[in-house]
């Protein structure tokens, strides 16, 4: 049951009140070009409301529980300098920094026009025509829409745009550092738009790893448009610590003959719910969607993926692996939809989990819906414990139990981490994961 929105005490009410203030201050009496966009979001959010208990898509994540908080919707104190990051290493010349979703030029290093003809900066200052911007921002597959997308849209003030023009290559991987200001119980709704035009190429690393030590809540939307023949590698890291909450939507739209490879890495958080949606909407697309989640202490991680094969002759490869310990819960729901006209699709999905304790929970649900008749699809899901025979083998060679367990867990994570193509990121990830597992084993 969705509580009545007339009731001022309903969960939705505090968001709608705050939204009205944001919408009014954003336009300041005049249109900023996005008022209709915000209003459309508000209407969708008001009519849908947050997912009701027992909603199938939120079965294991009764999200209302986490929303019963007095949130602050205003940015707090900003950052005078860039916090360090285990994942980033030295800052190159491709680094965009956003605080509460707002691009901060003074903390960023963006290549100049001679080096990079594209655009990395605030959506509001982009030279891309408004109607094109809006059409990208509004590209949401109706099959995967949620109240959180709509809420994010209704609060839209600004966001980050990465625009890689036709036939252009990002000379270095672009790092995006997403920071949240220090207001306690801050509820922030960042939005990132990545447009890789036809025949372009690049790698983007989207980091949410700064732990400010206070309760944070992010409702983030990232939209990626991969033009025909383009190749985009996209990595998202979430590691904000035990007080952080993330509701995340990734929408990837692919044109013909494009390749999009993503890796979703979740290493901490009180609540992480990600919906990763891929729509290869042209022939000859390749979609690689991979991920690794490490749920320790009482972390709750819920990963939903959806590959909507709308056009023929495409390939999707999906590998998600998880390690769940202590009293943590993890959910993997992987949906692959092959529409009737989408013939000759090869779609592979694999979800493997290791549960380390009696109190940890894992729910894995592959969903294949195939309406075309000439397809190759496979899926496999396993959830188990560390292999006792492998443990015995290692221990019989003198290796201590904790070290043996750590070796096996690292080995378990190795193949999915190996799919990270940016060498420096992959090496750091391997070290960080190994370190976390050592703590888990010890």
């Amino acid at each position: 049951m969705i509580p009545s929105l007339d009731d001022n005490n309903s969960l939705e009410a505090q968001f709608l009140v705050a939204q009205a203030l944001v919408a009014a201050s954003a336009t300041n009496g005049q249109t900023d070009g996005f008022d209709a966009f915000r209003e459309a979001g508000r209407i969708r959010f008001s009519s849908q409301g947050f997912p009701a208990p027992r909603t199938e898509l939120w079965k294991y994540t009764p999200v209302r529980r986490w929303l019963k908080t007095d949130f602050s919707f205003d940015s707090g104190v900003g950052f005078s300098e860039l916090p360090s990051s285990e994942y980033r290493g030295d800052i190159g010349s491709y680094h965009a920094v956003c605080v509460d979703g707002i691009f901060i030029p003074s903390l960023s290093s963006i290549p100049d026009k001679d080096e990079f003809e594209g655009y990395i900066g605030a959506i509001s200052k982009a030279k891309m025509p408004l109607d094109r911007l809006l059409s990208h921002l509004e590209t949401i597959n109706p099959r995967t829409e949620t109240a959180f997308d709509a809420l994010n849209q209704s609060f839209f003030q600004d966001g980050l745009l990465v625009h890689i023009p036709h036939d252009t290559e990002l000379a270095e991987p672009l790092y995006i550092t997403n920071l949240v200001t220090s207001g306690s119980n801050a509820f922030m709704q960042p939005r990132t738009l990545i447009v890789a035009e036809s025949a372009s190429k690049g790698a983007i690393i989207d980091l949410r790893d700064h732990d400010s030590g206070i309760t944070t809540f992010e409702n983030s939307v990232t939209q990626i448009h991969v033009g025909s023949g383009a190749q985009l590698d996209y990595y998202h890291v979430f590691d904000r610590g035990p007080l952080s909450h993330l509701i995340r939507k990734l929408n990837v739209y692919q044109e013909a003959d494009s390749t999009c490879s993503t890796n979703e890495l979740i290493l901490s958080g009180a609540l992480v719910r990600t919906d990763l949606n891929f729509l290869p909407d042209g022939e000859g697309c390749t979609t690689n969607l991979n991920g690794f989640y490490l749920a320790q202490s009482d972390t709750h991680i819920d990963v939903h993926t959806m590959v909507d094969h709308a056009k023929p002759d495409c390939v999707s490869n999906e590998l998600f692996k998880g390690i769940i310990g202590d009293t943590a819960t993890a959910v993997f729901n992987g949906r692959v939809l092959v529409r009737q006209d989408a013939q000759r699709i090869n779609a592979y999905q694999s979800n493997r989990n290791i549960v380390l304790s009696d109190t940890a929970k894992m729910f894995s649900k592959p969903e294949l819906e195939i309406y075309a008749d000439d397809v190759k699809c496979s899926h496999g899901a396993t959830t188990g414990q560390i292999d006792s025979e492998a443990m015995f083998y290692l221990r019989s060679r003198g290796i201590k139990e904790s070290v043996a367990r750590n070796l096996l867990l690292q080995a378990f994570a190795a193949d999915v981490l190996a799919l990270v193509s940016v060498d420096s990121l992959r090496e750091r990830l391997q070290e960080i994961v190994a370190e976390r597992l050592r703590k888990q084993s010890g």
Partner: protein
Amino acid sequence: MLEIKNLHVSIEDDGTEILKGVTLTVNAGEVHAIMGPNGSGKSTLASVLAGRDGYVVTEGSVIYKGVDLLDMAPDKRAREGVFLAFQYPVELPGVSMANFLRQAVNSVREHRNQKVLSAMEFLKLMKEKAQLVQLDPSLKQRAVNEGFSGGEKKRNEIFQLAMLEPTLAILDETDSGLDIDALRVVSEGINSLRSSDRAFVIITHYQRLLDYVIPDFVHVLVDGRIVESGGKELALKLEDQGYDWLKPTESDPITA
């Protein structure tokens, strides 16, 4: 070095008794062969000595170098010098041979108050010992036993034995699944590792390994008891006459 007295062992899950009073003494430098028909308890004996889960010792004792072996965790046993060459070596995808063996060798060395090996020293040792059983040195990059042929897996066990330099090596059907050339390589490896302070317990179904690795003692295990012990000639008799002439007896087992 090893004193097994009246050892009774059951399977934890269903309580089936497998070993029904095994007594065996092994001294440093000796090579003991344990033979017997399928299901007689040979592999159970090896498993219990190495500390595999799933077995319950209901009676008897195992003293190794003066202390109770059964009280030690499997990794502690290994650090104390017990080594089991597995009948079915385990594949460890994602764990490289180099990483695996370096962890193993250094934990054993640390325990013996020996210097921990540097990466260079370790690789040198690995190369040297791999030659002993003619393993390709490129194996260090490979995941442990993954994609190894049956023969490679068995040679890998002997290679690990050479790396870890145990005092008591238990070989569980190391000869099974080996062709004649691989058998010769493995046997030569074992022979080169024989020394006055190292004992071997070789578990085998067939006599053919014992043509190459000459045992000091041969014991026949039937239905959980050692029913016959003797010198190397006993193995030849078994090869010739099979196990049928040996009936399980209720009498006291014969000690070596």
